[in-house]
């Protein structure tokens, strides 16, 4: 009996919709900067339509039934689009939960002097709406995770360039945190390039690594050890002052790996080791005479 009444309530769409939209606008959680009232009204109308269709097919209110699939699809679509717009999970879920109040009010009007019937109806509706709400949040999170995974993949692709600085010297400027996943990619790329270019010295520049904790240091040492096994020496450069402090506080021991503050220093060391000398050649006298004017 309670079920048919819910159908009834949902079917009186117009009054319910007005109440609901008003409730959402008043809830204080709605991001009026992200969604217009017109759009909100359109979404709410569409949702009630889908819901009422589902209730016509299957009034059981058990949301796992195939008849409710369109309702779930609608919510999935909604939470995905809201997630993209920048809604928080609760701001997204409020869409479903805010339907409770107008529904309860309408049910109350239908169950005057029938406390038990009202209690039953309220319980069923609560359970149903809670499930829908949870489903919305789940989908929201799935959407978010997809975004995160996509970004991670992008970062991995972007962040492992190995550049040749000189004959026999390659550099690997690292940007972003080093986790074990990335370390293995970095390591593979570096070792491949070492073989290809027959480089004996690799400079790993960590200017772009935000923090160095024991984990990151471990990963760096692994890379250095692998390069050394191949017969190439590593220099770690780009250690910022704060990082030097943290490393000492955490008692991170980089062993006998050469470390330098800047890439330039590292390159100097590398060239020195390869027996290369950089010299400033005599500056040819400037044709305009500007170069010598200071002396005369």
């Amino acid at each position, binding site marked *: 009996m309670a079920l048919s009444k819910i159908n009834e309530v949902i079917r009186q769409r117009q009054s319910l919709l007005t109440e609901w939209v008003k409730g959402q606008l008043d809830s204080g959680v709605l991001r009026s900067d992200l969604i217009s009232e017109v759009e909100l009204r359109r979404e709410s109308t569409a949702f009630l339509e889908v819901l009422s269709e589902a209730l016509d097919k299957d009034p059981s209110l058990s949301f796992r039934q195939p008849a409710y699939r369109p309702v779930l699809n609608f919510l999935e679509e909604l939470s995905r689009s809201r997630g993209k717009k920048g809604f928080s999970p609760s701001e997204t879920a409020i869409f479903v939960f805010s339907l409770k109040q107008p529904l309860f009010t309408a049910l109350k009007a239908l169950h005057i002097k029938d406390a038990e019937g009202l209690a039953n109806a309220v319980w069923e509706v609560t359970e149903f709406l809670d499930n829908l709400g949870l489903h919305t949040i789940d989908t929201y999170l799935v959407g978010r995770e997809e975004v995160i995974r996509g970004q991670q993949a992008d970062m991995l692709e972007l962040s492992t360039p190995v550049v040749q600085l000189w004959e026999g010297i390659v550099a690997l400027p690292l940007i972003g945190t080093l986790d074990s996943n990335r370390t293995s990619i970095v390591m593979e790329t570096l*070792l491949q390039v*070492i073989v290809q270019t*027959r480089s*004996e010295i690799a400079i790993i520049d960590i200017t772009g690594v935000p923090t160095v904790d024991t984990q990151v240091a471990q990963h760096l040492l*692994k890379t250095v050890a*692998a390069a*050394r*096994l191949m*017969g190439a020496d590593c220099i770690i450069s780009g250690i910022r002052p704060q990082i030097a402090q943290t490393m000492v506080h955490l008692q991170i021991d980089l062993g006998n790996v050469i470390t330098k503050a800047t890439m330039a220093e590292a390159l100097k060391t590398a060239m020195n080791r390869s027996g290369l000398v950089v010299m400033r050649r005599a500056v040819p006298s400037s044709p305009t005479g500007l170069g010598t004017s200071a002396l005369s």
Partner: protein
Amino acid sequence: MDRIPILTMGHFLLVTIQVDMHDQLALTLQDDLTNKITSTLAKGVLIDISSLEIVDSFIGRMLGNISSMARVLGAGSVVVGMQPAVAITLVELGLSLTGVYTALDVEKGMQLLRRQIDADFYHLTTDGNFVEI
């Protein structure tokens, strides 16, 4: 029985591992190599593992052992041409072979070996040339 050939070249011994190592082969190599160092009084050992594609912890340790044994017998040693995959595997196994000299290829390995033993067997004359003692 399978053996890995050890070639003599002047003061040096060359070992080229071109088959997949199994434990017995590794042990035989250890025996042969130590014997050869003693009999030829070699000053350096170069182990080329550029064709070695599969390693396990045993082979990894063996590479370390061979270097230590050579050092005990008074010879320098260098491992050359390790494949990236092999290097990664060894590091993941926790074997970073500290104390083993490595080089990218045979050429650079020979240079390294020469430098290593130069200090012991040659001395620098005043005009900057090395002479054998």
